[in-house]
């Protein structure tokens, strides 16, 4: 792997509360370019909230997120910070891709249309160029034959692969995946995981929240264990799964196995 002076993503002492419940309690995390990082942890530990802060779907209370050196979501000057304008937020969101547990495809657009919307309206590409990029990505996720199908005409696994293609076609610097197989029937999980694996092998930078321990072990350069709004332990998959240091992680892995 290449060495970079500066990580692509830097999350620094991130705090986030919903009303009076603190959900993220000072999270520090860095992700380098072309790195694949998986986040594991029990339900309610703040994994989704962390991804949503990075993609600016949630505001956060303090701390900083830098993407490629640029402060995300807020302008920071001295000890004051201001939320960026809607337009600036939209531009920053387009630098990261997000794949959701529940697919969230646009139901009124075909598979190709789902991918083309961002290309046309955000990247402002002409229609035929957007279409050819959409077709290329549908091919990459094995759905060339389904370009003109509506989401309601696709299986869950196919829908999720369209959602992956939609996120990647925008050419984001970083892709966030939040439990993308949790809503799938067991027999459809593998096709989606294989798709993600091939992206990882091609050098996409991925930040993955998953309950699939075998997959996390298989695909990641680094695994992060979150516990009650903090990062409790992180390291290479062999270390995390083979030799957990904290008792909480050992316990979590035991319960995940059963």
């Amino acid at each position, binding site marked *: 792997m290449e060495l970079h002076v500066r990580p692509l993503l830097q999350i620094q002492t991130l705090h986030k509360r919903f009303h009076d419940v603190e959900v993220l309690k000072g999270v520090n995390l860095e992700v380098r370019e072309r790195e694949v990082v998986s986040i594991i942890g029990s339900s309610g530990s703040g994994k989704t909230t962390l991804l949503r802060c990075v*993609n*600016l*779907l949630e505001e956060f209370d303090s701390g900083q997120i830098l993407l490629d050196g640029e402060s995300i979501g807020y302008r920071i000057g001295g000890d004051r910070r201001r939320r960026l304008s*809607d*337009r600036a937020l*939209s*531009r920053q*969101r*387009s*630098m*990261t*891709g*997000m794949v*959701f547990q*529940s697919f*969230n*495809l*646009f*139901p*009124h657009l075909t598979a190709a249309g789902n991918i083309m*919307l*961002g290309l046309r*309206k*955000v990247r402002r590409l002409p229609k035929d160029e957007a279409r050819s990029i959409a077709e290329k990505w549908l091919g990459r996720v094995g759905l060339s034959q389904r370009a003109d199908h*509506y*989401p*309601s005409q696709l299986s869950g696994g196919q829908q999720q692969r369209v*959602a992956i293609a*939609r*996120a990647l076609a*925008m050419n984001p610097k970083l892709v966030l995946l939040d439990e993308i197989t949790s809503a799938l029937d067991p027999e459809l999980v593998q096709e989606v995981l294989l798709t993600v694996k091939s992206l990882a092998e091609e050098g996409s930078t991925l930040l993955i929240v998953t309950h699939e321990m075998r997959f996390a072990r298989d695909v990641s350069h680094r695994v992060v264990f979150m516990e009650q709004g903090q990062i409790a332990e992180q390291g290479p998959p062999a270390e995390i799964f083979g030799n957990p240091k904290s008792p909480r992680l050992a316990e979590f892995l035991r319960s995940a196995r059963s």
Partner: protein
Amino acid sequence: MGYTLNFAVIWANLDKLLSGLALGLGLALGAVAMGTVIGLIGGFASVGPSKLGRRIAGAYVTVIRNLPILVIVLLAYFALPEYGIRLDKVQSFVASLAIYAGAYLTEVFRAGLVSVPKGVVEAGRAIGLTRFQISLYVVMPIMLRNALPALGSTFISLFKDTSIAAAIAIPELTFQARKINVESFRVVETWIVASGLYIATCLVIAAGLRSLERRFPKF
């Protein structure tokens, strides 16, 4: 034997009834088009971030839904000129009907907007669409598809409500029928034919709307 049905006079005047029918359809179309615009504004306002906007939309719906349509029509026709607003009969009637329909469509669109899944909106934000682009390219099409059946039944109601235009002497179907009735004394025949025309037209509109609904994908 009493009354013997004789439709001869009615057939002789069929052209008047049909032109009345066409006028009624035109009035309904104009009203549904304007009412849709009002309803979209009202619908977005009623779920929007502005408290004042929500209040105004709510008050509008409450006021209009508690007024008989005939009162709205007469109010517009007789009261507006007092304030220097000069509309001809047709304009004033279409505006009244549009304001009336707008209140119902505000509710229809509000329900449609609430039914758009939150996750789909977030997916739009995640790829970098602006708030306005999401409304235009994501929320509106989903909402309109969901609202299509309600939009259709509103249009049919509006078409029937155009008979109220007879009250301000707009020569639509009911007005024409009444005129023929008065001139020919063929009470039963006149209203049988007029009713048949209303029913047939509503059925045709309903069938057209059903095929329109089939054309759009279900989701």
